[in-house]
């Protein structure tokens, strides 16, 4: 598991490469888009800001770029306070969702533009464009105008323009959002390969949790202008900090079940309508009620366990999502194959992967520590 937390590294300079301190943005109309963001990014890290639309992720990115002026807080980039500097005085490469290519310039002119502005010699410009164009596979498109290019090719040109100057940090605002599925996967892999090859720091904004998990060293999940959770994709996926993250990350989201916590003869148990689930989590003070969260892939069909009836099946080729009506509520199970609707089955919940949330605050009560160091109880599900 990649966990580039500063605290785990011994370093000469403990300064992060990019640091956001209590960053805030309130628009003149009173909208509080960003309500205090603290984030430290190490050099070479690929950070993905993930959240639903209106969560402040794009505003945060635009503040880092200098396209929005923060109302409060600080942005430190490479030991320099850039909070109120114009974009031209920060060394950032920006990729827009809608490409923002200059329509009156050929692809080549578009890519050359940032280099011309810093006085690069024509021969160096040509060499750099050749190199970047080859990396992106757009050599044949250089003499075309943006409107002659497909969306995917326009975004390649836009990536090339952001890359030619080798900036301190790449900022990408949903660069794949408007592309079709095929180009999206292709370009997603390219972006990650390129970033790894150059080990340039990157901040990437998306509302697509799958895209976020596939790209990120570290994910930052945002909602309502605030950070909900920061962590590596497995941390976020397996140990969501609250109900919002549990539901937003993962497709489909986590199964969430409201029920009681009771003392069982051999430990803590979660119970609802007579169905019990053992939980290998040790709480100093067990609350009377809790919300249990479990991902579809940690529910399996079994000979014994929670009884249920199949109500819906979503077959996806490699697997199927099966909706099962149980005493615990309707659960979505990741199954290897289809089930007939109406079929009676039993479900086994992998209690080592269970999360518990406070029903009042929505915060995680405790996290089961993950597969490696969880002590699995012998009997997982008991029925009465």
């Amino acid at each position, binding site marked *: 598991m990649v966990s580039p937390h500063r605290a785990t590294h011994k370093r000469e300079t403990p300064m992060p490469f990019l640091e956001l301190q209590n960053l805030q943005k309130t628009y003149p109309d009173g909208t509080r888009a960003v309500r205090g963001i603290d984030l430290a990014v190490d050099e070479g890290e690929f950070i993905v800001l993930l959240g639903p639309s209106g969560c402040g992720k794009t505003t945060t990115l635009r503040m880092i770029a200098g396209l929005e002026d923060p109302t409060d807080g600080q942005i430190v980039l490479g030991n320099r306070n850039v909070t109120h500097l114009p974009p031209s005085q920060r060394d950032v490469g*920006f990729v*827009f969702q809608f490409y923002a290519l200059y329509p009156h310039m050929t692809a080549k002119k578009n890519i050359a533009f940032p280099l011309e502005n810093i006085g690069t010699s024509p021969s160096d410009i040509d060499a750099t464009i050749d190199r970047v164009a080859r990396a992106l596979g757009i050599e044949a498109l250089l003499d075309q105008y943006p409107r*002659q290019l497909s969306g995917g090719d326009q975004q390649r040109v836009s990536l090339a323009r952001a890359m030619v100057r080798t900036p301190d940090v790449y900022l990408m605002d949903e660069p794949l959002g408007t592309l079709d599925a095929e180009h999206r996967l292709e370009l997603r892999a390219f972006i990650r390969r390129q970033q790894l090859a150059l080990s340039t720091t990157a901040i990437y904004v998306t509302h697509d949790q799958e895209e976020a998990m596939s790209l990120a060293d570290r994910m930052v999940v945002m909602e309502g202008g605030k950070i909900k959770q920061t962590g590596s994709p497995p941390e976020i996926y397996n140990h969501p900090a609250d109900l919002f993250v549990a539901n937003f990350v993962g497709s489909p989201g986590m199964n969430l079940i409201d029920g009681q916590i009771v003392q069982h003869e051999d430990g803590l148990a979660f119970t609802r309508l007579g169905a019990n689930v053992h939980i290998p989590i040790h709480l100093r003070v067990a609350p009377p009620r809790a919300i249990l969260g479990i991902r579809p892939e940690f529910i399996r069909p079994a000979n014994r366990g929670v009884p249920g009836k199949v109500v819906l099946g979503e077959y996806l080729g490699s697997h199927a999502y099966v909706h099962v009506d149980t005493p615990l509520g309707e659960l979505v199970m990741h199954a290897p194959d289809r089930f007939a609707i109406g079929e009676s089955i039993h479900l086994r919940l992998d209690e080592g992967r269970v999360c518990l949330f406070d029903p009042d605050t929505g915060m995680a009560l405790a996290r089961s520590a993950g597969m490696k160091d969880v002590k699995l109880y012998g009997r997982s599900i008991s029925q009465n």
Partner: protein
Amino acid sequence: MHVKDGVLKYGFVGPALIFLIAFNIFPLLYNIYLSFTDAELSGGLARFVGGRNYGVIFDDTRYGVALCTTGLFVVLAVAVELVLGFGLALALRGPFWGKSVVTTILLVPMMLSPAVMGLYWNFILNGHYGVVNQALAVLGLFQPQWLTDPDLKLLSILMIDIWMWTPFMMLIALAGLNAIPPHLYEAAALDRASNWTVFRRVTLPLCSPLLFLAVLLRTTDALKQFDLVMAVTGPNDRTTQTLSALLYQVMFRGYKIGLGSAYSLVILLLVIVLANVFIRYIASIQAKQGRDVA
């Protein structure tokens, strides 16, 4: 009642067609015919004289002078209006307090009739009681004879035209500027372009098709300059006689319909040729950028 499509078709197109033939095509053809005759306003039988009228035009020294006057007028008026109008548009582009009021006031000159404006300016620029010279007198400055000094008359007409039509340029330039997507300016800022570079390489090229359109409209209009000349100096003033003024003089003061028709065709030809050059240029820019500006 059911009307057949075929009948309906002519019902819709018919009125426009009749109007076009009656007021455009027939007069044009009749004008061409007249230009080869010695028709006069005083009546009498028009005789076919072949190309003689065209010969007269090119022998007429007034024609050469009027051509130069018109050319000078068009070039200066359109150039100054373009620069001033574009400048004003750049200044008015951003949001500021009272923007709509300022913009409306700036558009007023354009909304008034040129003939009325010519008369107003006659008063304003009058050498004796005009407000301009009175102001200059109060300041103790030299008071030029705007409307009677042969060196100044054309300049005065130019100034009035510029005053009238700069708002038009501004309006179109403003539309062009507003059509530039804001994210291109953000991209340019991130690409570290200086203000001058942004203007030269983003603003100007993206605005230019609309600017060319404005120049085209103003040029064809200025080539026909007549009302201001008529109102300020009259049609037969050597230093301000434009082609249209000369045409008027020949046709309606000299009663020579045949010769006047030939003059009007020469002017028409000039306008068509120039307009085509402009239109082709605009189309070539648009084809390259694939944008629908005009």
